[in-house]
Each structure stands twice: as structure tokens, then as C-alpha cells.
């Protein structure tokens, strides 16, 4: 018998604009000791489907319209709130995307782990502490005897997610719902967390529902895959079949969106547009303080017309390097020249003039657009500032930019919050292109986006790069993405360049241990080739 048997589940939200069918008649089962992956883009209803089982959606406006969800003989949808509370956290546990927001920053990890043990199991404090330490050890926290007394902010993102997993495991749940548990993490950390989840699932023989927007992530661990779109299940089947023989066009589209293949690079080498020599960028220099050395003695050439991929994990200094080139953070020493012009000492008007020649695209399109400015204002600002258009012609300039980045002209009066993430990123790209720059730093421009949208934005950037004759520094933690888009790849580790070369060289013959690690972390290599 299945651990969880969901039949004909229907959930809708009653909003001012009428009824929205978030989950429209879906059925699936979860087996003990198996991982079931639910895949779909934002708004496909994948999270709502799982949250509604536990009564975790706001009602109203949400309403469960029908169906059943039998878990150990009980229909979860028929249980009262107090009966559900007993099941939540004890028999069914959850892991969320952002571990920082789920942990209380003012309590030690140990305290937060021990609380439910003492509460639910009635253990004594010393016993509970021992149990908590064992759990931390099991999820791979180093030296749990001392780290148990640390606060959440003292852990890295990956370690925090391990703590969350430990918390989820406290009451030995039978079913674990993981909602995008690795989306906020670096690729290398993601690989570790995925492996941990697979190991724990085998050891404890629990059922796992793994919610994700990315098919590649679950390629190595899922037993069964359910693909959702617009509230409906469009395809389901075991992993092998989905990856080798997908039937539904949407599933195929998802598979095609996984970045694969290496960009073919022409052999001709142009001269350098940007030359960086012995660059150091340090933060927090004080009299008695050791500065944080974000960039250590980096020398690098970026050639005209190339897309240079810059790869590294969080904290490797890759964003700082991009911002140093654009003079957005103060550099400590070294030199940066742009087309033969020394940027290092530049100030005032001459710097303003240079700024029009180099632009930036940011990671989070929700934060990089001024919420009080419409698309028109956002795009008109750089056009007017650098006198590319006059007041009379600016409207045409704005519309032309919108055409270029694939935004409908009818959206010109809308504000950022009215757009999806992908559309926002298009606006941000339009803004960066407005000054007709020669050089663009793209700082993780697709890592906040769904996989399908990622593919569209990457293609757009490639096209526009050609059209505008751009040189680009593409910063990312994801080698698969970089390999797809970049002509040359530089690997940054702890503020230093450890390896560089073409995508082909790097992938076929990585020289450094760290590069090898990065390569092995790309999810779904085995199945996707």
C-alpha cells in the first residue's frame, strides 16, 4: 500500500478577479522509501498541492474543492486542524527553500533542535542534547559537540540546510516534503545536500516528496517524477522513462531547457578590451582589523567581443571582481584599464562618461528595479542621462529597447511588481543596453529564475550580445550555464584565479581539484550526458 495516496485533488483560490484553479484534479502516490519529485515552474501549483495536504494554505482565499489524500488510512483533507497538527511535524515533516528564514536567529541550533524532542518525546534535557548531537552528526555537521551551541548566522547556507534536515528528522517522520531545498544553494553544496537526502531516505526508509522547478536537480535521486503545469499533471512516470522517453511536449521542453553542450568557440583572438593587473579588493580595513581580502592579486584580460564566464562558489569574490571592474566598489590596489583608458583613478564627469560604456545586469530582478518607476521611466532614465535620446525622441528609444528585449510595448506603463521574474530581468537587460555599452557584467543573471525562463533569458543575452557587439563578463556559480554561454571560463576560488581556459578544455581536462569538484556537482550528468 502506498504511504500517501492523493486522488483528484482540487484546490482553488477565490480572488477579486474570480476563481483561480491552482490545483486542478491531480492524483499521485508516494511510496515508502521512494523519492517522488514534483516538477513545474512558478505558479504551476506544485507547492500548493503539497501545502494544501497539511492545511498550510491560507483559507480563504484558498479552498480545497475536492479529492482525497489518504495517509496511513486517514484522509488528510477530512481531518480537523488539531488532528492535522499532530501529523504535521511528527509523521510528515517539511524542508523549505530558505533555511535562514526558518530558523530563529536568537536561539542556538541546539536549543531549537532540543525543544521538539523534549516536547514531543518527553526526554530529559541531557538525553535530548545527546540525541540532537547524534542528529547533527548524521546530517554531516562537523564537530557537532561544539557547533550545537552556535547560532544560525554562524553557519553557511548549506550547513543551515543540513540543520533544517536534522530538525525535520527529529520525530522520525514517515513522509518528508522538501520544497526547493537546494534552489538557494551553490551547485557544489547542492550536490552534497542531494546526496545527503538520498542517503537518509535509504537509511530511514522514509517517503520523500521533492518539489523543484529543475528537472536536472532530481535526475540523480528521484524514483518517480511528476510534471505539473498550470495545476494539472501533464506527465508522470519513473525517472528513466521521463528522461529517456518523455511523451508530453512540455516535459520535452523542460528537458531541452537544461543547459547542456559547450559553446563552439572561434579560434580568432581579438585584442583585450579590459586588462586587469594585480587587482586587490579588500573590505573592512581598520587599524586593528584584518581586512577581508575578497580579491587577491588577480590579473585577467577580457578580449573584445568575447563572453568570459567567471565561476566560483558564494564568497569566492566573483561578484566583487565584476563590481571592481565597474568601479562600484573601491579597489585596494592594482589597475584596471578599459580600451586602453585607466579606470583606477577616474572620478566625476569622466567616470560618468565611462559608465555609459560599461553596464551591469544584476542577479535579483526583484531588487534591481526601482519599484516606484514604470518600465518607461526605468528605460528612459539612462537614455536621457547620457543624451542618447532627446526629450522628443526618448519614447521611440524606449519602445525600441522593449522590442529588443522582447517585451510587449503595451507594458510600457507598468511597474516592476506587475511582471514575472523573467520579464523583470528583460527590463533590467534593456536598462543595461540603453547606454549602448561595449561591456556588460552579468552577475548571476539567471540564477533567480525558473529553468525554462533561464533558457529564454540566456538565449536573449546571446542574441543581443551579437547584435550589440558586446563583450560580457558572465558571473555564475553554475558551470552548466557558463559552459553553454561562455567562450572562455575563469574559475575563481577564495579570491584567486585557479584555472582558466575554453569550456572544452576545462571540461575535458580540468587541472585543479576545485574545478573537478565543480564539474562533478552539475546535477543530472549521468542521465543527460
Amino acid at each position, binding site marked *: 500500500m502506498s504511504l500517501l495516496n492523493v486522488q483528484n485533488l482540487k484546490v482553488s483560490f477565490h480572488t477579486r478577479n474570480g476563481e483561480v484553479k491552482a490545483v486542478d484534479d491531480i492524483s499521485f502516490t508516494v511510496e515508502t522509501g521512494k523519492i517522488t519529485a514534483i516538477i513545474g515552474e512558478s*505558479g504551476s501549483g506544485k507547492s500548493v498541492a503539497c501545502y494544501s495536504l497539511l492545511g498550510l494554505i491560507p483559507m480563504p482565499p484558498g479552498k480545497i474543492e475536492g479529492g482525497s489524500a489518504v495517509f496511513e488510512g486517514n484522509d488528510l483533507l477530512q481531518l480537523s486542524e488539531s488532528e492535522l497538527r499532530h501529523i504535521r511535524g511528527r509523521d510528515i515533516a517539511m524542508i523549505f527553500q530558505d533555511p535562514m528564514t526558518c530558523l530563529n536567529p536568537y536561539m542556538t541550533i541546539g536549543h531549537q533542535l532540543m525543544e521538539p524532542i523534549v516536547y514531543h518525546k518527553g526526554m530529559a534535557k541531557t538525553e535530548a542534547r545527546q540525541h540532537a548531537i547524534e542528529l547533527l552528526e548524521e546530517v554531516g555537521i562537523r564537530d557537532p559537540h561544539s557547533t550545537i551551541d552556535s547560532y544560525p548566522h554562524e553557519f553557511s547556507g548549506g550547513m543551515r540546510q543540513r540543520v533544517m534536515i536534522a530538525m525535520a528528522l527529529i520525530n522520525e517522520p514517515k513522509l518528508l516534503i522538501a520544497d526547493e531545498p537546494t534552489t538557494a544553494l551553490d551547485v557544489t553544496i547542492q550536490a552534497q545536500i542531494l546526496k545527503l537526502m538520498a542517503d537518509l531516505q535509504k537509511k530511514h526508509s522514509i517517503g520523500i516528496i521533492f518539489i523543484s522547478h529543475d528537472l536536472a536537480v532530481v535526475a540523480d535521486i528521484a524514483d518517480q517524477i511528476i510534471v505539473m503545469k498550470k495545476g494539472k499533471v501533464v506527465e508522470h512516470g519513473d525517472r528513466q522513462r521521463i528522461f529517456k522517453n518523455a511523451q508530453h511536449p512540455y516535459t520535452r*521542453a523542460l528537458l*531541452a531547457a537544461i543547459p547542456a553542450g559547450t559553446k563552439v568557440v572561434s579560434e580568432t583572438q581579438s585584442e583585450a578590451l579590459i586588462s586587469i593587473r594585480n587587482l586587490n579588493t579588500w573590505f573592512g580595513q581598520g587599524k586593528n582589523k584584518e581586512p577581508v581580502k575578497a580579491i587577491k592579486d588577480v590579473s585577467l584580460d577580457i578580449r573584445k567581443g568575447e563572453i568570459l564566464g567567471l565561476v566560483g562558489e558564494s564568497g569566492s569574490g566573483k561578484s566583487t571582481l565584476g563590481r571592481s571592474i565597474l568601479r562600484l566598489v573601491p579597489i585596494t590596489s592594482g589597475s584596471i584599464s578599459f580600451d586602453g583608458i585607466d579606470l583606477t583613478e577616474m572620478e566625476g564627469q569622466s567616470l560618468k562618461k565611462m559608465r555609459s560604456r560599461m553596464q551591469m545586469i544584476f542577479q535579483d530582478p526583484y531588487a*534591481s528595479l526601482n519599484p*516606484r*518607476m514604470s518600465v518607461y521611466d526605468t528605460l528612459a532614465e539612462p537614455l536621457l*542621462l547620457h543624451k542618447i535620446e532627446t526629450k522628443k525622441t526618448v519614447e521611440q528609444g524606449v519602445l525600441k529597447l522593449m522590442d529588443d528585449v522582447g517585451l510587449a510595448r503595451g507594458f510600457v506603463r507598468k511597474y516592476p511588481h506587475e511582471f514575472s521574474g523573467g520579464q523583470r530581468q528583460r527590463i533590467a537587460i534593456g536598462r543595461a543596453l540603453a547606454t549602448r555599452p561595449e561591456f556588460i557584467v552579468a552577475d548571476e543573471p539567471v540564477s533567480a529564475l*525558473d529553468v525554462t525562463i533561464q533558457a529564454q533569458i540566456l538565449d536573449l543575452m546571446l542574441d543581443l550580445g551579437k547584435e550589440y557587439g558586446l563583450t560580457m563578463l558572465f558571473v555564475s556559480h553554475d558551470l552548466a550555464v557558463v559552459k*553553454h554561454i561562455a567562450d572562455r571560463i575563469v574559475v575563481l576560488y577564495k579570491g584567486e584565479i585557479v584555472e582558466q581556459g575554453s569550456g572544452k578544455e576545462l571540461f575535458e581536462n580540468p587541472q585543479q581539484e576545485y574545478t573537478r569538484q565543480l564539474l562533478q556537482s552539475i546535477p543530472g550528468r549521468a542521465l543527460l550526458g
Partner: protein
Amino acid sequence: MTSIENTGNDNPVPNNKISDIAMAEQGTSLWKDAWARLKKNRMALFGLAVLVLFSLIALLTPWIAPYGYEQQNLDLGATPPSAQHWLGTDIFGRDLMTLIMYGGRISLAVGFVATAVALLIGVTYGALAGYVGGRTDAAMMRLVDILYALPFMIFIILLMVVFGRNLLLLFLAIGMVEWLTMARIMRSQVQALRQQEFVEAAVSLGLGPVAIIRKHLVPNALGPIIVYTTLTIPGVMLLEAFLSFLGLGIQPPQTSWGLLISYGAETMEEFPWLLIFPGLALALTLFSLNFLGDGLRDALDVRSSKD
């Protein structure tokens, strides 16, 4: 990697010529949008209408007031509302409606001008301190702390002694005190906002600090500022009444709402209308300000729009 057509909500809608034209007809300023949204808020419109009406009356008072404000009738004394004196008369037999109209001139002027002074200084100062940061910020905010610590009354009395009693000085003195809190609010807002990527984006576009503060920081900090402003105006009006009561502000026969209310309060038991009518005028103004403030805050927050 292939791009996918028709997946998700990222599909650009095909270009539409009609919407081009529609767009050309509409303006694109934040304020125009805000006005369109404000128009839908009935309470805010009511508040605006009352304030406009009161301001108009205040402007036209010398021509439309039924009596002169110095016109006494000691034989008459305090009388309740009647056909000749709609709102009654005070103990000197002066027409209360006339007094309220003249008093409104002073009260509204003090309220708006002093608040405008406070707003201008406070927002600029706070935004600058918050944006520049570092030692400049520390020095600027310490100055604010020092001014906070200065006893307000001594400051006013000093001003009055040195420069003599003068309405303009009163505006200035009150404005000088009220901007301090405004500066603090603005600074904390700007400090939070300048960490955002859109500010970094503006820097990388080549915008100067003034343009960044004006176009990117101030509009995003408007919510709390407007709310605080609508709280400041009534505060300032009451402060003026307090100063006048101490003999530092407006002196009879000139009058203001605050002064009328404080006299009315003394004779509340015998002549209640002397308290009720000026009180009503002040209360109505304050309500209107609050409604308008709330409406403005919502109207200026583009995220709250539901259309």
C-alpha cells in the same frame, strides 16, 4: 539550449499598435499615476475637498467675513448662536464665525508653512546623511542629537527676545524643531534603501548622488514621510496654540484656532459654543489631513494598486 515558446508567464505578448497610442496619450509620471489612484479613494478626496475649502476661506477672509475681527460689542457680551451671529459671540461680543475665519488663516499658515520648512530641511538633511554615510553621517546626526537636547522653549524665547515677536519667526522656529524627527526617519529609510541593487544600478548608469537621492531614494521613502507629515501638521497647530497661550505666539486681538480653543476651554461651562466651534474647525482639519495622508500613502505606493 532551446528557447521555449508558450511556457510560463514570461511570454511577451505580441506588439500591439493600439496600446502604443494609448500609452502616448497618458503621461508617465509617478504623480499622475498617484492622482489617478487617489481619485478612487473617497475619504481622501473628502479630506482634500475640506482642506481646499478651508484654505480658500482663509485666503478670502478679509472680503467674506461677516464682521471685522476687532469689531467688539461689549454690551452684547457672549451670546449663543443666533441669526445675526451664526456661531454666537465671545465675551467681548465679537462674532465667533469671523474669529474662527481669521484664526484659521494663522493656524493653517503656521501648520502648512512650518511643516513645509520641516519637510524640506528634514528630508534633504536625512537623505544626504543616510546616503553619504560614514563620518559625515555621524557628524550630521550628532548635530541633530544636540538640537534635540536643546530645550525648545528656551530656544523660542531667545528667538523672540532677540528678533522680536513676528509671525514669520514663529513659522521658522517651529519648523526648526520639527525637522529633526523628519531627518531621522528619512535617514533610516535611505540607509535601508541604499543597500538595494536598484541604487547600485543607478550608480552604474552614471547618475550622480543628487539624482539618485531625488529619483530613487526619496520616492521610495515617501510612505513613512507622508504619514509623519500628516501627524506633524496638527502637532504644529497645537504647538502654536501653546506658544500663543504663553504669550510667545499670536497676541489678541489677533487670534488662531489654538488660542480660541484655549479661551473657550476656560469658559466651557458658561459658554460651551466658544469651545465647540473652534474645536470642530480644528478637528475637521485634522481628520481631513489624516484621510488625505492615508490616501496619499496608498496612492504613491505603486504596489498597492489593484488595477
